[in-house]
């Protein structure tokens, strides 16, 4: 069987029926499925877990969602995706291997600097067969395997667990569920503070002999309460 290298075009005789091959001319790694050579490319990326976590926090903050108080568990890996050019001009993009449960996949290929894969152990070797990924009725013109750097983040907000996928190419966030602002929590320290304040106001209001005394006492109580509030008292 012969196959053409997708990077340099060199046509080589393949001695085995295995899937993985390395071009003897340009050292590019490519795969052969059903006699068809498929280029394997990856997005160049330097892993940075703190930046991925910061990007998730920034997204939650900017979009008005709850912020987790503790850093979540972050797993970085390259994940394979099929990118197919259809004969009618359109493209299809599908995950080459399922992501762990509850982690959504990007719906379109990210923008980035693509390079032909070499023998890199960090790239994911296992993918679904392209014939299973795409229905036979669709005529494919070109098929590529893209290895996309993804951060899978598990985090907790109010004892509930959430998952998010952060793209290492564009720092885009993909999530099925995001931590919404919780229900109305009763701020007991604040309510206690207001109850004491109101009691003091009513006591002064009823005990004051005339309007001048009443006004003076209420202003004093108001200023005292304001000073306490500004110092953080009663906020809980």
């Amino acid at each position, binding site marked *: 069987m012969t196959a053409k290298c997708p990077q340099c075009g060199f046509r080589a005789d393949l001695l085995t029926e295995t899937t993985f091959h390395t071009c003897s001319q340009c050292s590019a790694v490519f795969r052969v499925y059903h006699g068809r050579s498929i280029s394997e490319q990856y997005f160049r990326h330097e892993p940075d877990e703190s930046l991925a976590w910061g990007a998730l926090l920034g997204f939650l903050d900017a979009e008005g969602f709850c912020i987790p108080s503790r850093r979540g568990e972050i797993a970085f890996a390259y994940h394979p995706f099929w990118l197919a050019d259809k004969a009618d001009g359109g493209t299809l993009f599908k995950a080459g291997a399922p992501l762990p449960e509850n982690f959504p996949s990007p719906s379109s290929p990210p923008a980035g600097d693509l390079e032909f894969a070499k023998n890199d152990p960090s790239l994911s070797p296992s993918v679904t067969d392209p014939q299973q990924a795409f229905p036979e009725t669709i005529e494919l013109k070109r098929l590529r395997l893209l290895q996309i750097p993804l951060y899978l983040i598990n985090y907790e907000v109010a004892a509930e667990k959430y998952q998010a996928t952060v793209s290492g190419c564009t720092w885009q966030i993909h999530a099925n569920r995001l931590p919404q602002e919780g229900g109305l929590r009763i701020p007991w320290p604040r309510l206690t503070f207001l109850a004491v304040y109101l009691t003091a*106001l009513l006591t002064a209001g009823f005990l004051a002999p005339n309007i001048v005394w009443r006004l003076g006492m*209420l202003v004093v109580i108001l200023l005292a309460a304001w000073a306490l509030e500004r110092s953080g008292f009663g906020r809980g």
Partner: protein
Amino acid sequence: MATIVFKCPQCGGPFEFAEGDGSSLCRFCGVTSVIVGDRGVHRLVIPERIDLKAARTSLRKLLAAQGGGQDFAASFSFNGGRLLFLPFWRIRGMAMGWQWCEKETFKEEIDYDENGTRYTRRIKGPNERVFSLIAKPLNFNSPAGDYASFGMVRVGLAGDVLQCEPMDYPAAAARGSVIDPLKGVAQARQEALAMTRDSADAEGTVRRKSRVRISSEWLSLMYYPIWNLHFSREGRVYPVMVDAVNGEVIRCRFPGGNQHEPFLPLAMLALLVLGWTTMPAAGVAATILVVYLLKRRSGSLDIAAIIRLFAGMPERVAGVQRG
């Protein structure tokens, strides 16, 4: 039409040629150069006009102007940035072909009722079949990938107005990251033809058939520069996209600060107590004043907002968003 600057292969002098030209004459040495693209596709780049410092300043100005002053802008620290060259398919030429369509027709009839009042009736006529030839200039730009996370880039206008240069990959890669096109030219052509068909008059069309092709096609892959910056506050990272040609911030999401009003609810309670412990009329007046203040503060008497105010919960001020 874009103007492209090239170096003459004989004398090295700069000469310009218009987009679509197949050859050009050097005005210094008089040699004629034939223009060809890389594997049939001309690859051009619009050089960046602003540097990293200017991009950062542009964002800071936006934060100060829309986020409530210099303090807000200074609360975000700059973490770094990189230049990206985004590829766009650019197709110029003539869209030529034919179009057949069947349209509904209506005519208006004036009539009078028994009271003599005049009215107009709309009556459906026979369907009209129209065959027309299409021949119109095509100027189409389409992103060669999914750039939703980068915001809107006005490459179409820029490509017409600004000077382009032939793409020099090593030089561009030394300045930033050159993004690879993931959308094929076939899809870009389809989009261009679909735009040509859609722009034809479609009112009242029942059926339509057309066959349109691009003639005298000039195809190019144009790289547009943008700055991708990262700002952070309290460990949260906010990505920003700045147009590297005109310095405009094209995408950012910055949250506003939390606003806490401690004095207003306390003063309102004191006012109510003062009014109702003095005399009923004063109590009613105090209540009306409190209701007026609440309505003026938030524009309406929103119960949730009133509860939040008295419960001392901070409210988030609108942040700065683009794209």
